[in-house]
């Protein structure tokens, strides 16, 4: 459903993303990992229209979307969350989500938007109380709200940007399960960008690894975790996580 070919983003002389190609199939969860500054977020920002690619093509559902304005891309069915949740604090939680439901789905009707908001809030496990404020939410709650906003736009493809940062172990597991439920129950295809490899490896169908703006590995979690290039990139900084993830992936592949 998504075909990315030769994607390049230059900031001045710096190539943040250098000739990256990949594709995502309908109903798949693709994990996108890599160390800080490897170009994950830059790719996300190009997919969602926040940044315009320097070169390359992004074809979604048979249409070229590279360089379209963010709201057009949302209306075509690509929703996104931000790495750091960005709620609108002057609106209530419900209004935050209803707003995304209204504008994300082409401004049809307010009643429909409110229905979408209720469904999205229920999906992420937040109360659908209409007057609750954003200020009452903690880190996990804000992540859920961020996800509900993206779901309310009615995406076919969800771009989830490092949605587990700042959560504790249990919350992380819950959030990972939620992404899988979103795919299983709603049939939404997901690209998931994450630092924390362990949990990601357990949930995704396929992983793509970036380093210095280039794709260095791609494949099943078990294969990628065993890839010497990936281990090298993560070694020293994150070796234990990588090994744990590899073990986890092997266990999963075996069972």
């Amino acid at each position, binding site marked *: 459903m998504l075909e990315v070919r030769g994607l390049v983003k230059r900031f001045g002389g710096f190539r943040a993303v250098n000739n990256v190609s990949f594709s995502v199939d309908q109903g798949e969860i693709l994990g996108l990992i890599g160390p800080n500054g490897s170009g994950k977020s830059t790719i996300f920002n190009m997919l969602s229209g926040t940044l315009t690619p320097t070169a390359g093509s992004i074809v979604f559902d048979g249409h070229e979307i590279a360089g379209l304005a963010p709201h057009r891309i*949302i209306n075509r069915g690509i929703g996104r969350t931000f790495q750091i949740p960005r709620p609108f*604090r002057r*609106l209530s939680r419900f209004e935050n989500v209803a707003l995304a439901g209204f*504008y994300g789905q082409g401004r049809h009707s307010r009643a429909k938007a409110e229905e979408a908001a209720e469904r999205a809030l229920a999906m992420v496990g937040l109360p659908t109380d209409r007057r609750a404020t954003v200020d009452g939410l903690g880190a996990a709650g804000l992540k859920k709200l961020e996800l509900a906003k993206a779901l309310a*736009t009615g995406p076919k493809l969800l771009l989830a940007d490092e949605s587990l940062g700042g959560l504790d172990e249990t919350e992380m597991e819950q959030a990972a399960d939620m992404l899988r439920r979103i795919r299983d129950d709603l049939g939404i295809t997901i690209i998931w960008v994450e630092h924390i490899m362990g949990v990601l490896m357990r949930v995704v169908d396929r992983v793509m690894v970036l380093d210095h703006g280039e794709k260095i590995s791609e494949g099943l979690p078990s294969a990628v975790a065993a890839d010497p290039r990936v281990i090298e990139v993560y070694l020293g900084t994150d070796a234990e996580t990588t090994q744990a993830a590899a073990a986890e992936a092997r266990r999963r592949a075996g069972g």
Partner: protein
Amino acid sequence: MKGRLAAGIAGLAALIALPFVYRDPYHLHILVLILIWSFAYTSWSIMGRFGLVSLGHGGFMGIGAYVTALLWNHLGLSPWIGIPLSMAAAGALALVVGYPCFRFRITGHYFVLVTLALSGIVLQVVTATRDYTGGSLGYTPNRTRGSGLLALQFDDKTTWYLIALAVWVGGLLIWHWIDRSMSRYALEAISEDEDAAAAAGINVTAEKLKITLISALMTALAGAIYCQYQMFIAPDVVSGIAVSLQMVFAAIVGGLYVSFGPTVGAIITILLAETLRIGFGTQAVGWDNLVYGVLLVLFIIFLPKGILGSLLERVKLQRKPSPAA
């Protein structure tokens, strides 16, 4: 909700009946001015409340006034046609200035500076084309020898009072219509975080242009109505930076986030200007602007929600039994 509607209708009925009961021309004159300026300030606040602080509205008001008067004097075009044309001109200018600002993310202080230039330019144009506009000496629409209705010229204050009242009520209705629309949420979101708003599917540029256009059209109407009522306009009264600042001041002092805030602001500014004029005469010319400036700074620091906004908030808090008590 029903009680509020009933109170609103009763209040409106009382306001309509007023000039038939109370006929002091000076007081009616002050009321007409308050209503016209309230409408102008409401027009400004329609975009100002979303953090789109414009110092260009003096320009829109000037276009409303001058285009209407010039079309009447030179082409004999009735204000009934001239006013829509002047509004269209102000709207077109708003789009020409607004589009690049919004498209290229000129926000906050930079947006204020761009709009400040807009007021300045309209003032300069009026002054520079003094052969047509009378320059800084001011300009007077020709008195009609025919129908007062066609020329939108009326001698009696009651008619003007009712016209100004209608326009003012119209402004409040538009304020409420926007307040209840989905656009209001979108604009609140945009004023907080443009990227996140775009990620919610909002066309940020289009939403900002829409509200700017509505605001500019209304402000031009205010200028045209002012011109028709006073039958005299001068650049420093209906256009330029001083007028823009006065709008910002009145809207902020009255309260930006409540519908009657700009009206409270108008009552304060006009009573202040009149008091200074009567008390100090020509010695006090320009003092009102000085007082505005000082008060504006004090309000932004100590009472950012304005007089009415803060009062209403206090009433709301008292009504709600506090859980901590």
